[in-house]
């Protein structure tokens, strides 16, 4: 008997299709797939830089179906979330979105995500990694709430870039131009509820569209029909990584190692180390990790995530940072780095031992030229503002391009 691979049942080995899969398959002409949370997920569709520029110059869509989406509702929902995350959820108005962090008792970052306040007693929490177990733990003591994990049946699609508002207007979302950053709006999409938030992960003008999974493709088609004349194009993980770095946003697996998955002592990070101290609200009542964070705020973080503008053009991927050109004592390491085509700078995020921030900073950069390895030492300048922060990302109403 001849055994071929065809005779096996390999279905379980395959990544799950996204709710937009029929359309993604047509557009991923380079077949560049990876996976995220078990879902098939595009590294890129045509070319990384092309997609990156679609977002900076026109508009692009990013499949966020694999993100985790938890609907938390009930009289205790607000209190539960408020105890879990470091920001003050009680200050959130209905119809608003807030970027949040949650920590272990030791004040180490578990994950970041967004809370959508859909009503007095109704929230949606989104995050990159499955969090059912932690959410359950966080509910201890709160009986009056339910958590519905809609990760697998609620579709999300980010639409980002300067023409994104024009596209949504063309799609018929009347009044969308009045949506302010971090607000939520509800539309009737042929009888189905469509939720749109002015949020995103690119630092640019942009929105996220949320709809029940069974209508995902229909919504996609309406969006792409409207976007035809506005340069709409899908972008994948690699372009996203460039865009978020320019915006100065952190990414798990780069800037932070999720605390619950960390093996080595303090190889995870705190909000202060990630330069997100502004997101820790000590004025609100007790929350997870509070006392550890109070202590850290007093003492100062061991490391500080720092934005660097590095001389030359060779990306400082994986570089050590030193306090002198001689490179004798290393004082930190680069977490993400790239040449930024729109800013025209060699940018990086780096974890640097806090006491050294006021001194000189040098990166030792390795690079390759036709298989030969080279290295150079480049001066780094600290940058306070995000590398990319166009006015249109904040304007309401935004312009059409």
């Amino acid at each position: 008997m001849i055994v071929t691979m065809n005779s096996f049942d390999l279905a379980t080995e395959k990544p799950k299709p996204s709710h937009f899969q029929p359309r993604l398959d047509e557009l991923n002409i380079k077949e560049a797939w990876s996976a995220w949370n078990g879902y098939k997920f595009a590294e890129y569709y045509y070319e990384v830089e092309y997609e990156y520029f679609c977002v900076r110059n026109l508009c692009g869509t990013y499949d966020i179906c694999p993100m985790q989406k938890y609907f938390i509702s009930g009289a205790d929902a607000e209190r539960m979330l408020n105890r879990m995350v470091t920001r003050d959820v009680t200050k959130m108005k209905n119809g608003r979105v807030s970027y949040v962090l949650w920590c272990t008792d030791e004040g180490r970052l578990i994950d970041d995500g967004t809370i959508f306040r859909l009503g007095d007693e109704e929230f949606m929490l989104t995050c990159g990694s499955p969090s059912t177990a932690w959410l359950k733990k966080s509910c201890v003591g709160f009986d009056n709430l339910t958590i519905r994990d809609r990760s697998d049946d609620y579709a999300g699609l980010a639409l980002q870039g300067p023409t994104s508002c024009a596209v949504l207007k063309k799609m018929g979302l009347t009044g969308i131009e009045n949506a302010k950053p971090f607000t939520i709006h509800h539309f009737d999409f042929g009888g189905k509820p469509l939720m749109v938030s002015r949020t995103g992960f690119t630092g640019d003008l942009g929105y996220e569209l949320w709809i029940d999974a069974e209508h995902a493709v229909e919504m996609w088609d309406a969006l792409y029909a409207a976007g035809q004349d506005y340069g709409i194009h899908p972008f994948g993980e690699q372009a996203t990584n460039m865009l978020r770095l320019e915006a100065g946003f952190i990414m798990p697996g780069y800037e932070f190692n999720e605390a619950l998955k960390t093996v080595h002592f303090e190889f995870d990070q705190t909000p202060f180390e990630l330069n997100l101290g502004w997101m820790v609200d000590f004025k609100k009542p007790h929350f997870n990790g509070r006392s550890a964070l109070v202590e850290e705020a007093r003492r100062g973080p061991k490391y500080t995530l720092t934005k660097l503008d590095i001389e030359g053009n060779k990306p400082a991927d994986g570089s050590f940072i030193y306090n002198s050109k001689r490179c004798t004592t290393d004082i930190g390491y680069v977490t993400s780095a790239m040449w930024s085509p729109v800013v025209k700078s060699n940018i990086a995020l780096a974890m640097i031992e806090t006491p050294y921030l006021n001194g000189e900073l040098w990166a030792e950069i390795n690079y390759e030229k036709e298989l030969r390895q080279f290295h150079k030492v480049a001066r780094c300048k600290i940058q306070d503002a995000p590398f990319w922060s166009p006015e249109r990302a904040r304007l309401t109403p935004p312009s059409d391009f």
Partner: protein
Amino acid sequence: MNHYDAVIIGAGHNGLTNAAYLAKAGLDVLVVEKNDYIGGAAVSRELHEGWVYSSCSYVCSMMRQSLHRDLDLSRHGLMLVPYLGTINFADNGDTLSSYHSEEAAYNELKRISRHDADAMFRLQADLTRYSQVIRKTLLRTPPDPASFKPRDIHELLFLAKEFWSLGEKELYEYIRFFTLSAADFLDEYFETDIVKTSMAGAGIIGTALGVYSPGSSYILLHHVMGDVDGSIGAWGLARGGMGAISEAIASALKSYGGEIRTNAGVERVLVKGGKATGVVLENGDIISADIVVSNLDARRTFTKIMEKDDLPPGIYEKAQNYKIRGSSGKVNIALSGLPKFTNVPDNPYVNRGGQAFSGSMETMERAYDCWKRGTWSDDPFIESVIPSAWDPTVAPPGMHWMSNFIQYCPPELADGPWTPEKRDQFGQTVIDKIERYSPGFKDLIVHMEVRTPWEIEQEVGLTEGNIFQGELTIDQLLFNRPFPGFAQYRMPIKNMYMCGSSTHPGGGVSSACGANAAREILMDLRRPNTVPQDDCYDE
């Protein structure tokens, strides 16, 4: 105030760059521009409501990265976006698309010729090698080979070292390369006419040479040595049109305290005792300045805005003989939709790039023959790009504008000067040719701007409409640009400098001429140098 540390004549992108660097170094600078808008040949103009044309230059790759970064032009609103490949249209109806993605480009070449598909790798490697040497000279002042000053000797050694690093064989090849025609050069690589043709266009753009004329291979190199974010040979579009480049530099200039005055054409440079002391404007205003910098081409500077008697003997004649022949036209067209081309797949990645209506080597040469006879070809070489397919700011949604650069177009016709009727006939020839490859094209036309060398000279002040402010032939390159002995931005009159494309490294939107000139001025003033000398991509 009518006295400045420096007055710059002309708000072309080089004049603005020069002024920005002088202002950044703390000088009080004024730029005076004859037009009521700035930018010279790097300009965006709305001539028909809703459409913004890049009236002259249309694509960007020479812009020096380190200047962009150093002047923080992104923060001043500049975004350069790479565009995708170009489709070449042959006389016999065949097409060759230079696809953006490597595998598609290779397969397309293979469709035409397996030999040429392989040879393309060698051509690209050779061109990149040649480019890298030239690129290193772009932000440096050419040494004076007859001088014994330490700096000149140092710079000569720098050049020698760069050339020697190629190895002996390649060095000979390189020297030979400068004297070759584009056709001879390409013959060494390719078998098929369409592949050669697709590369040869770059060898004639803007120059009064043909594909078979010696020297056109350097022009080819000049057009592929630029880059977009380090990918050498790639071209990009400036979001908002080429004027966005000039506007960003102007914004940087203003942030350093510099001033720009438009509608302020210069009538004469004032010279006293062999020293420049300022300028007189066409309206009679006098502006005195310690330093005068001209952004105009060398012919114009010495023969139009200076008194012959103020110049040392021989300079006027040199300027008269400076080769600055007009050879190009430009037709800007507003379209109600995206044109469709025959024999091209309906592929947005291809349709969003450029088009080259090159025909064949023979057709390009015949077009040159017409130029020599003082007429235009009814089958000209047209290089087109549709910026609106990429740039949402330059045409209404769903509508487009197409930039068409035409080689050749004579500065004067055999039967007399240009007239509006003849200009329109020239424009008609261009759209007739495009219509042959895109049936229905003419029905899409909403508005059209036709520019012959005459219009270009009248508006931009480029003598004869020569796009480079002077031919890029070896007798006018590097330490020979614009003339031997005057290649270091200083003019034969004290306190006077040149900063336009007539100086090294020549034409194109690069900002290098303006920046290099600023470095020399600051050196003469004994101020610290603030101008980058190298480009960060050339390590």
